[in-house]
């Protein structure tokens, strides 16, 4: 496997990038890691997704956000705008060196990073159980601190200063949480963008009201009069929620199918 692990220049500091480049590149796919604990809970599956895409002929790219994982900086120095600008720079870099299809894969809380400038640079969008409700995401994150107080294993330490907050070991600027909580799909304006939405939904169950509302809001906001959003019901374990390391094989199969179908819709299959 042709894999490059390297640091690239970000707006505020070096970003760690894992890039798998097949011999014959038929398109590019950039994976946005989700935020905070979700990044740890999904990393093993993100890697599998990237390898699958590579094997299908896609250059697959994973870049850690500034102040997270192996990228430079501290979370306290990060802000939503910076993360978005870094994503725009990564997509622009792909565009400058290739005219082939660029697909963005966004899972869970990574959806909170999406804005119109990012969407303008891609040819297709894969949404994996996206969380567009910033208010709810931040509420859940803050609840982590409340729950930690119960078992005292992850005690909430005093804030370093008035501008920062420490939740279960994640020290960050309060402004970051404020900005994340203000995110929702209605900020995305309508444009024709082929996309697919993979949603965890057991075969014998209906979609919950909250998730159905998110899907509807996304459709209303982004793809009005656009028939290009394909819905995939994924009947598999919610690996990011499990206290055990779980491999969601059905999800990987569904995602591959979605990627190839999306690629065909965006540009049509290319041959070497």
């Amino acid at each position: 496997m042709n894999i490059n692990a390297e640091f690239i220049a970000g707006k505020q500091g070096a970003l760690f990038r894992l890039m798998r480049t097949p011999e014959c590149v038929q398109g590019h796919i950039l994976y946005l890691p989700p935020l905070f604990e979700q990044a740890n809970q999904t990393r093993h599956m993100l890697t599998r997704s990237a390898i699958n895409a590579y094997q299908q002929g896609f250059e697959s790219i994973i870049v850690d956000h500034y102040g997270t994982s192996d990228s430079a900086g501290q979370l306290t120095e990060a802000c939503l705008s910076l993360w978005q600008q870094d994503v725009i720079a990564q997509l622009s870099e792909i565009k400058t060196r290739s005219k082939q299809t660029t697909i963005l894969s966004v899972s869970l809380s990574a959806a909170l990073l999406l804005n119109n400038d990012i969407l303008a640079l891609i040819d297709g969008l894969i949404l994996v159980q996206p969380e567009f409700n910033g208010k709810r995401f931040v509420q859940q994150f803050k609840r982590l601190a409340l729950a930690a107080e119960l078992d005292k294993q992850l005690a909430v330490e005093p804030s370093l200063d008035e501008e920062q907050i420490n939740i279960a070991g994640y020290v960050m600027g309060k402004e970051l949480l404020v900005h994340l909580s203000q995110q929702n799909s209605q900020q995305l304006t309508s444009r024709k963008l082929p996309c697919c939405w993979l949603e965890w939904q057991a075969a014998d169950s209906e979609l919950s009201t909250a998730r159905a509302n998110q899907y509807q809001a996304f459709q209303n906001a982004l793809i009005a009069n656009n028939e290009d959003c394909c819905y995939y019901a994924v009947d598999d374990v919610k690996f990011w929620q499990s206290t055990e390391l779980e491999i969601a094989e059905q999800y990987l199969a569904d995602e591959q199918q979605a990627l190839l179908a999306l690629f065909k819709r965006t540009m049509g299959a290319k041959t070497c």
Partner: protein
Amino acid sequence: MNTAQTSPQIISKLIHILMAVIPSYESDFWSADTELFGAIAEFDSMAIVTIIGEIEEQFDIVFDDDDISAENFASISSLAKLVFEYYG
């Protein structure tokens, strides 16, 4: 508490959620009387918040943050009682 105060459907759904989040126990481990907080090592703060989120989604309810207490998460029965207050 008396489990008759909550519906079997709520208990069943809660067990389904718990089995997905904490898959390291066999299905016969789970019952209305199964103790949670302080009794199961995997039932930590992350698991609690995950379970809250899943319950809210699947029952279409919204908990108050004050509901996050050791009493409410002591057992499946106590958790079912909490859900019943919103959902029942």
